[in-house]
């Protein structure tokens, strides 16, 4: 099977890198002279050991099959959510909702994933096809801003986002669609299909931005965070992607598998 060969090839590559890292670590731990160097090397070796564990875990799961891989990813989601919610401010009233998120929603989501064979399909789509989405969505945002600043007159959703205009929306979508068509060679699509995909992606991206704006309005904040200078939080930057990526995923699945 192609999948197995792919895993084997990637596995050999990673094995080689890990072996090299371990050998380098062992050599360094013998040559390190100062206390500071020894501490650094000890930390390096601890990291390498952790990488061995993580890689072994992922590869065991992949070899064991879809169910094992799905369970692994479900656990990772669970732990990531645990870390995120620990840092996020929650109220006493959220307690039961959080219980649901951890013990009902995540398991249910991954049960869907396992039973519908979605995980496998993602592997068959070349990774750079996803790059296509990310690039187009961000370009579309930029061009909407540019066209809006140049020609913007008529507001599209004055209550939610005063800066979004019809001129910006149409100009941005048209430009990004053209660029999408020009990038057809990095996708499994024909140029015409690529243009269609780009059109859908950018429209969905726009919807994502509007919805996230509404959430921000409701919470009385301007941005989700302040981690990216000039943009706000991470979620402010990927709000369009949140909507565009799943739609792209399902369209590709529908048409190309």
């Amino acid at each position: 099977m192609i999948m197995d060969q792919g895993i084997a090839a990637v596995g050999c590559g990673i094995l080689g890198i890990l072996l090299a890292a371990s050998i380098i670590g062992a050599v360094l731990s013998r040559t390190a002279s100062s206390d500071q160097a020894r501490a650094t090397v000890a930390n390096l070796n601890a990291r390498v050991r952790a990488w061995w564990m993580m890689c072994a875990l992922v590869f065991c799961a992949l070899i064991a099959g879809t169910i094992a891989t799905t369970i692994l990813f479900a656990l990772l989601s669970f732990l990531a959510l645990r870390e995120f919610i620990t840092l996020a401010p929650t109220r006493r009233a959220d307690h039961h909702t959080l219980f649901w998120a951890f013990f009902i929603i995540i398991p249910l989501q991954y049960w869907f994933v396992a039973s519908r064979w979605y995980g496998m399909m993602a592997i068959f789509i070349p990774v750079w096809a996803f790059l296509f989405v990310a690039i187009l969505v961000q370009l579309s945002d930029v061009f909407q801003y540019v066209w809006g600043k140049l020609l913007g007159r008529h507001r599209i959703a004055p209550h939610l986002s005063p800066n979004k205009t019809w001129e910006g929306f149409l100009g941005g979508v048209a430009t990004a669609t053209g660029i999408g068509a020009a990038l057809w060679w990095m996708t499994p699509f024909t140029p015409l299909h690529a243009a269609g995909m780009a059109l859908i992606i950018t429209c969905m991206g726009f919807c994502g931005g509007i919805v996230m704006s509404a959430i921000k309005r409701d919470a009385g904040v301007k941005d989700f965070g302040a981690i990216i200078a000039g943009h706000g939080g991470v979620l402010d930057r990927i709000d369009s992607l949140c909507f565009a990526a799943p739609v792209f995923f399902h369209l590709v699945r529908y048409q190309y598998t």
Partner: protein
Amino acid sequence: MIAGLIRLVTGAQARWVGCTPGLRQRIYFANHSSNLDGPTIWASLPNQVRARTRPIAARDYWEKGPLRRWLAHAVFHAVLISREKITAGNNPLVAMETALAEGASLIIFPEGTRTVDEDTGMNPFKPGLWHLARRHPEVELVPVHLENLNRILPKGDVLLVPLLAAVTFGTPLLLQEGEDKLAFLERARGAVAALAVEEA
């Protein structure tokens, strides 16, 4: 094994900022916001230390039902004390001092009951800690701060939300010569609160 399970559920990370784990006889005193508090401190101690450390717990809660009773007696070796109808016969201090005399370390919650909201701060400490400190100067008093446990299992709930708890052990406290009860209790409370600031 139960200790491992508690650590798994609460994700408790023990941080020894003011002292190191040791077999010396100690009284760990902490803020109280969840029924998991005592078990979590107990579970975050190293095996040998845990074996000789007993949480002080409310009899009315831990004697209810066979599971709680089994946990309290067979697993935690808790010192159960009454919270109501205190008489000379069931004075909580007597039970605590008996356990100390037997060489056990103790986990106590001087607030007496769980604080509902961590943001409002701790309740005033009850005088038991002062009495113990006065009568047992050889025992180290270690402030402990618990974080997030009221979000994992709040008062009045039975559903666990698996967030990550933190257990911080501070610098042992000594009763100063001539220090009066209120001043000492306030200082002890401040020591626990200071650990909360250190975490943030």
